[in-house]
């Protein structure tokens, strides 16, 4: 009973993580780098969503839609500023990673500069804060988040694996110049991908803001997306969501274990992580493709 | 240690007689030990002559049997070719021999020492050197350093010698640099010593690969399509170059090549693979006239 509720709590936390992990895995899937700017992007989106509700007094649906759009546009900007030039110069992937971290720091600091002398929080959107199933409950926002991350996962999988455009995106992730020679407009395809990433950041930002209030370091949660997507099988989007949910469950369960609690749970998570990667080095959903020599 | 360096820095004329010299640790079982260690009595598995022998190698990837039940051997000082249609499994054989992939079954014996199952770098140190079909130079190192790397594997100074620049470091480093010049000269790359591989055209990159493999002073040198990307004129030059190097360094070579020019001119023995298995072996003449080989590989129009 208590344990079942813990599982629901873990699912809730996993929902938060998976919304972050999806966008993270998407970039990893295509551009093969860990996009830490996503944290800053999520934070910016959270504040934008907040400004939208506060200024226009909109409901959740409209706020989500507008923020997702804004997120997409900002992500396009981020791509232009932080990554496009690197691509033109064929820079190694590590530079993207560095650029993304720096971009994340910049976004976080811009937010600090404009908003930091005050605290902000979203108004309450749901009449009932929890949805009850008999003796169990789950927070309404968490449930909505779980729904959104699962459905966005589904859409992404369809786009990437069932459409020609998706195949083109995967192709360019393997050999950008060859993709150009196929007539793929690489800049356009990547911009499209980033727009999607921005949309997820927009949705994620609003939900994180609702759940956790607004503060400039909101995007720090990105590291959970990082862990989840790596454990999930680098770049595998389905794996990332599974990884996120498992991470949520694990954290919640560890907190309840006497002697571990929240304090030592990073240690246990680390050990489990290590054992997991040794036993299953391809991640949850990955397959090992040993490079052919 | 001293002996090794000397052997390596002077063009090693007499090396064939002492297979241990010039290579890394654990590489010098005496001739007396050699033949019996792990070698079955099978045909041709005989004595001092055979440096490399593979027996019953199998390798599959998923459903694809890339190599099956392959037995072959290479004798000291010879050039042996491995040919076959595309996808026959030739490169896979090289990968098995050099430890990039472990074989599913079978044994590989190098100079009396079983090397199958050893980690890749130990196999390399035991005396298997190779080039790659798709060139794999180190883009972060310049040409000289790429070659230097192979020499490094034989350098024996310790980490503290390197960090603190103790005399051992200087001694060995200087010796290596002298040898380096020799190898660069061997492939006529002195001019490009400080270019990055990416700045070289395909053909020059192949030469760097060759120099790098040579510098490791392997007992057996595996060359995977070294003449690809050369025009017929250049192929001629390449054959001459290789023959010369073979003499200078007393090389034993196993070569994969689609240019029949090279195969016919250089090899003393040819193995032909198709679908992972040997379909023929023999002298170049025998192979050239083997109907199975002609129909599967060379094509009848070939002269």
């Amino acid at each position, binding site marked *: 009973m208590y344990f079942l509720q813990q599982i629901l709590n873990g699912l809730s936390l996993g929902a938060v993580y998976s919304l972050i992990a999806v966008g993270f895995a998407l970039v990893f899937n295509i551009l093969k780098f860990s996009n830490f700017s996503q944290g800053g992007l999520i934070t910016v989106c959270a504040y934008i969503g907040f400004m939208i509700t506060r200024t226009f007094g909109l409901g959740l649906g409209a706020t989500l839609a507008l923020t997702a759009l804004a997120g997409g546009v900002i992500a396009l900007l981020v791509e232009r500023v932080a990554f496009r030039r690197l691509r033109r110069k064929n820079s190694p992937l590590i530079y993207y990673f560095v650029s993304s971290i720096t971009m994340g720091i910049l976004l976080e600091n811009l937010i600090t500069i404009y908003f930091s002398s005050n605290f902000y929080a979203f108004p309450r959107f749901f009449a009932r804060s929890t949805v009850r199933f008999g003796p169990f409950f789950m927070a309404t926002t968490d449930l909505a988040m779980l729904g959104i991350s699962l459905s966005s996962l589904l859409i992404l999988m369809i786009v990437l694996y069932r459409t020609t455009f998706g195949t083109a995106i995967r192709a360019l992730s393997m050999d950008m110049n060859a993709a150009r020679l196929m007539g793929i407009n690489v800049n356009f395809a990547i911009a499209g991908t980033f727009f999607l990433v921005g949309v997820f950041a927009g949705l994620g930002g609003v939900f994180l803001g609702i759940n956790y209030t607004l503060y400039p370091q909101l995007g720090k949660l990105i*590291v959970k997306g990082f862990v989840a997507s790596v454990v999930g099988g680098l770049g595998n989007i389905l794996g990332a969501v599974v990884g996120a949910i498992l991470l949520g469950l694990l954290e919640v369960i560890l907190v309840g274990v006497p002697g571990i609690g929240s304090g030592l749970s990073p240690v246990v998570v680390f050990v489990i992580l*290590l054992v997991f990667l040794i036993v299953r080095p391809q991640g949850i959903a990955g397959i090992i493709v040993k490079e052919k020599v | 240690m001293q002996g090794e360096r000397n052997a390596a820095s002077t063009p090693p004329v007499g090396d064939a007689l002492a297979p241990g010299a010039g290579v890394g640790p654990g590489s010098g079982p005496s001739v007396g030990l050699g033949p019996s260690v792990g070698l079955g009595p099978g045909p041709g598995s005989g004595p001092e002559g055979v440096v490399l022998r593979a027996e019953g190698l199998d390798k599959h990837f998923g459903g694809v049997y890339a190599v099956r039940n392959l037995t072959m051997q290479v004798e000291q000082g010879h050039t042996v070719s491995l040919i076959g249609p595309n996808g026959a499994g030739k490169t896979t054989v090289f990968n098995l021999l050099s430890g990039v992939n472990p074989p599913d079954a079978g044994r590989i014996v190098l100079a009396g020492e079983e090397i199958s199952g050893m980690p890749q770098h130990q196999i*390399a140190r035991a005396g298997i050197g190779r080039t790659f079909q798709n060139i794999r*130079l180190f883009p972060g190192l310049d040409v000289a350093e790429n070659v230097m*790397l192979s020499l490094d594997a034989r350098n024996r100074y310790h980490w503290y010698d390197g960090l603190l620049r103790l005399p051992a470091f200087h001694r060995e480093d200087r010796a290596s640099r002298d040898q380096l010049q020799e190898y660069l000269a061997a492939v006529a790359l002195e001019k490009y010593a400080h270019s990055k591989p990416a700045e070289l055209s395909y053909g020059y990159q192949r030469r760097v690969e060759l120099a790098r493999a040579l510098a490791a002073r392997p007992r057996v040198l595996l060359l995977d399509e070294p003449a690809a990307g050369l025009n017929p004129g250049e192929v001629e030059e390449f054959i001459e170059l290789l023959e010369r190097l073979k003499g200078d360094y007393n090389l034993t070579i196993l070569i994969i090549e689609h240019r029949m020019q090279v195969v016919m001119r250089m090899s003393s023995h040819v193995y032909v693979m198709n679908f992972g298995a040997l379909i023929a072996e023999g002298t170049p003449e025998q192979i050239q006239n083997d109907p199975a080989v002609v129909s599967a590989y060379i094509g009848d129009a070939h002269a």
Partner: protein
Amino acid sequence: MGYYLSVLTFTSITVVAITSIYVITGLAGLFSLGQAAFMAVGAYTSGILITRLSMPFLPAVVFGIAAGMLAAFLVGIPTLKLRRDYIALVTFGFGEAIIAILNNTANVTGGAMGLVGITPYTTTPVAVGIAVLAVVLARNFKYSRFGRQCIAVKNDEVAAASMGVNVAGIKMMAFLFGSALTALAGTLYASYTTYVEPGLFVWTLSAEWIIIVFFGGVNSLTGAVVAAVLLGTLPEILRATAEWRIAIYSVLVLLIINFRPSGIFGEYELPLWRSIARRFRRAG
């Protein structure tokens, strides 16, 4: 005067830390998002020995370095054989775990309330001297066979192994050497500020170091050191711009990465440091 000396001291400590990242990331291509934790190991080991056992500075530093290397060894054994992408994750997890352990052993480490009262042994000359030593060691490493092997392994593990490079071994060596330097930076830090707390050593510090190395040019030790000095003092120079300075700093880094993707220095090394390389050429 005191102000300049304190900036100089902190910059020297940063230089030591950056040198370690140069070895681990620049040479061996390993991404450690938990390198700051090795600094914590060094800082806490020496700090505890000094405060609780009144140990003198030098042995405390030696123990600090040894502890850092031991931790690196334990983390490295299972990790360095894994796929490259995982190293960032595992080191990140290790960093979090170290912080958690520090927070949960309050009776020894002071927990979140920090370890106070460490004797201030680190003077400016000590810090500067050690920074110079660290840079010289890293330069020697780069131009030894180990440095070349690191770069080869960073570029192409399969090809490197085929040339007889012990891939796992050389990665371990770079990781141990680098982590020893990081721990050394930690011991200096602890004995300079006299106060350490777990929250100082979070992964963002490791990320900042990586940024600095790339800013200078990941293939250039000169660049890494110059960037450490530059970016280490930049926030100081920009101090008057208050909350804008980190934003300015980020914009600067973005500009460099975009317009000089191989960092300010690319592959350039100071002539002095290249002396070996030059001798190399003359021999030909």
